[in-house]
């Protein structure tokens, strides 16, 4: 049977202390222990991108990390990014363009796209496609997603240098 480990971390700005099974993945920890179900387990082998979240500022796959590794870490999930308003423009662009259907991949897609947005500038469609190439969407055909990310990048770039 697995051992347990105590971890202290920040999740969406709030301090969290929990004792976790050494074998529990980060995605299971968020979903089962904290009720943050916006991060979704799609393949559990790091390919589909549905569990993408921000860890210490970088995007990672929550299914490839153990919760026990996260002592002292700073985790931001779709719930936190939504509540803070940081990606409100991106979410609005996704909504306008219908850049989602079933919505299962959407949180991971948004967290990934948010990392591209933070780089600044307006990437080409090809660059956007490349950047999102680790996030699987079965419904949309990707076109509207690329449109939405492009639109959000452009709007932010225009805001940054009017």
């Amino acid at each position, binding site marked *: *049977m697995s051992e347990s480990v105590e971890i202290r971390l920040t999740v969406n700005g709030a301090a969290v202390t929990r004792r976790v*099974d050494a*074998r529990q993945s980060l995605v299971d920890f968020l*979903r089962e222990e904290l*009720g*943050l*179900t*916006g*991060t*979704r*387990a*799609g*393949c*559990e*082998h*790091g*390919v*589909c991108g*549905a569990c993408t979240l921000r860890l210490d500022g970088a995007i990672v796959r929550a299914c490839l990390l153990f919760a026990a590794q996260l002592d002292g870490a700073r985790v931001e*999930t*779709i*719930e936190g990014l*939504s509540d803070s308003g940081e990606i409100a423009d991106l*979410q609005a662009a*996704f*909504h*306008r*363009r*219908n850049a*989602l*259907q*079933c*919505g*299962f*991949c*959407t*949180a991971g897609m*948004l967290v990934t796209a948010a990392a591209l947005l933070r780089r600044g500038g307006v990437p080409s*469609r090809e660059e*956007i*496609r*490349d950047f*999102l*190439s*680790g*996030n*699987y*969407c*079965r*419904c*949309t*055909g*990707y*076109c*509207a*997603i*690329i449109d939405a990310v492009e639109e959000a990048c452009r709007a932010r770039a225009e805001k940054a240098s009017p």
Partner: protein
Amino acid sequence: MSEQPLSFFDRPNSYIGKSVPRPNAQRLLQGRGVFVDDLRLPRLLHAAFLRSPYAHARIKRIDTAAAARRAGVVRVVTAADLAGLYTPWVGVLTHLKGMKSAPQHPLAPDRARWQGEPVAAVAAETRAAAEDALAEIAVEWEELPPLASVEAALAPGAPAIHEALGDNLAFTRTIDAGAVDDAFDRADAVVAETFTFARHTGVCPEPRSILAEFNPADRRLTLYCSSQAPHMMKEIVLRHFPLAEADLRVVCHDVGGSYGIKIHVYPDEMTVIALALMLGRPVKFVADRLESFVSDIHAREHRVAARVAVSKSGEILAIDIDDLTGIGPFSTYPRTSAVEGNQVVNLAGSWYRSPNYRARLRVVFQNKPPMSQYRAVGHPVACAVTEGLVDLAARAIAMDPAELRWRNLIADDAYPWKSPAGLLFEKLSHQRALERMLGMMDYTGLRREQKALRAQGVHRGIGLACFVEITNPGPAFYGVGGAPISAQDGCSLRLEPGGTVTCAISVTEQGQGTETVVAQIVASVLGVALARVRVVTGDTERTPYGGGTWASRGTGIGGEAALQAAKALRANVLTLAGAMLQAAPGGLDIVEGWIVDAGTGARRIGLEEVGRAGYFRGDTLPPGLQPELVATRHHQPRDYPFAFTNGVQASWLELDVETGFVRLLKHWVVEDCGRMVNPLLVDEQIRGGVVQGLGAALFEECLYDAAGQLRNGTLADYLVPMAAEMPDIEVAHLETPLAGTELGAKGVGEAGTAGAPAAVMNAINDALAPFGARVAEQPFTPARILRALGRV
């Protein structure tokens, strides 16, 4: 006064035809959707399955004692433990004459017939504990020779996978229309090809999921499903478990992709129901990705030998096809696994004028996972075979492939039309669609560019694919064959006291935008703002009875029910408002939530005032007037068995003849889905469908070895289309409204998947043409292309 009143579609505030974003997408964008795995119930148990590691093996003994003793394990079951709790099911439809299949059980009783078939289940306090216990189940297997390939299963003397059935032929059908032999005899050219379509699978982002909550106190079972058809699921469970109709409720919250995968009966899900009934506790099962690959239904697996006869002048004289398809060891319940092949032979060639058509279909049992209906059932096969033949014929008579299509498509003024296989087309627009396509893609310009680039050693290809698409199926599709699958749908509208409208409808939402489309129709017909319409779907206790969402029926059938319900509620509201205002209801209208004078548009009272009077102030109403602020209407297709749509796709791609890699440069679609309610959603349905078709054409294949073992059953090994490889997809529309309904909408969910593989195949072969090479085996991998080029 002589002017016609404006139709619901033309009223200034109509939402019909407008690109309205989906209100229900907001929660998904914030990660606040509710999928089955997001539900939290007290005393929840988690199920995990032990699956057969062999494609074919006898289960000599199973010892579950050690597993049952593990901490956190509540119950371990095998087939023997479930006996008497359910009745087995058989996936046949009576109108598919001569079709046979064998009884299927939640857990394989004595023999496992595919790698992945569930043979034991554990219910435990956590999923991890359940999975740990699986490792402690000891099974003594006796391996049996597997029949993995269709050819092996059909070979003379091959053992029957189910002895009682005698052989492995599940279903066969032939069509022989017109004078096929004569046509081949008098042809100037005959070309033949064998087209192969690999097995692939749905890879829903959310794996199959079910949570069964049984309350033994009142014997009520609630199923939370990731499903497209809650009412069908309820009927199925009632047929096979001892429950009263009133005691079963099926609820579908958000569904993370389905595409036909989540409309079938799966043995593991039936086991979860049995466990919940046994244990009196809620039990959840969410397939993990690895077991999804060997337990979700697979799609396609066809080999089609085909030939076409053509005259020098470019007349297609006859088409002759022979489809051999493998469906695994059981026909899937309740839709069967024969419908896919049946649609191939029904559809092939049907958009061309030739009356001479012959087809043979053989549907074969084998030791692989069950194959059944997946998005665009049969269409991509029929389309690739037909359109592949047309391109071959064009090459044989040295005619431009667009020109050959133009000369043979059913003329736009020739409807109604009956195809040689008996399909009835009410009104289609093939010629206009092709004309539009050639303009949109600048066909002649692309041909020039292609020629110029060829001279520089750049090999690009252009591929066209015309198609028809089956939508809005009537009761002749499943109901007539004995399946508890409703072809009708119902919509119930209630005016609330505050003037908003609650709409309960039996078609369901998996992200296509069903709820938005229905709200648009209701808001437009009733005369209220979209935000005032709240749509409820996916709950057998809260919606009228109906089929759900599959075969592109949501808008065409559900939308018409919604339109008629809104008309009925509108009449009821105006009756009450007329009494309140002492005005003739016919002189009143509803606009933006207000009762107005129809003539002047002057606002009289708000809908909330009507609602309040109806519910709270009956004392102010004339004697004898009973307000009826709920209206329900149903709709089912009656005039035609299906509402066909039509379209054309085109692919422009570049082939690296050194590596065999294909780069998709651009994809175009022209589609006629009748009246469009929401072009934004229609476009995305088409694009998503195209990409599923592109996956089948270029990447997706369940690779099996001779022992029936899946060799690429992970998402790292099984390739799906990702953003980087996909082209921009341009979509244009024609609108030929469907007769027989006021809404005039047809479906659009299959079209993209139907035509994309054919367009890509033809484009690849167009690029390969200078090398005298061609491919016909999907997916068109670099290795297959290099083999065709003779480079490997």
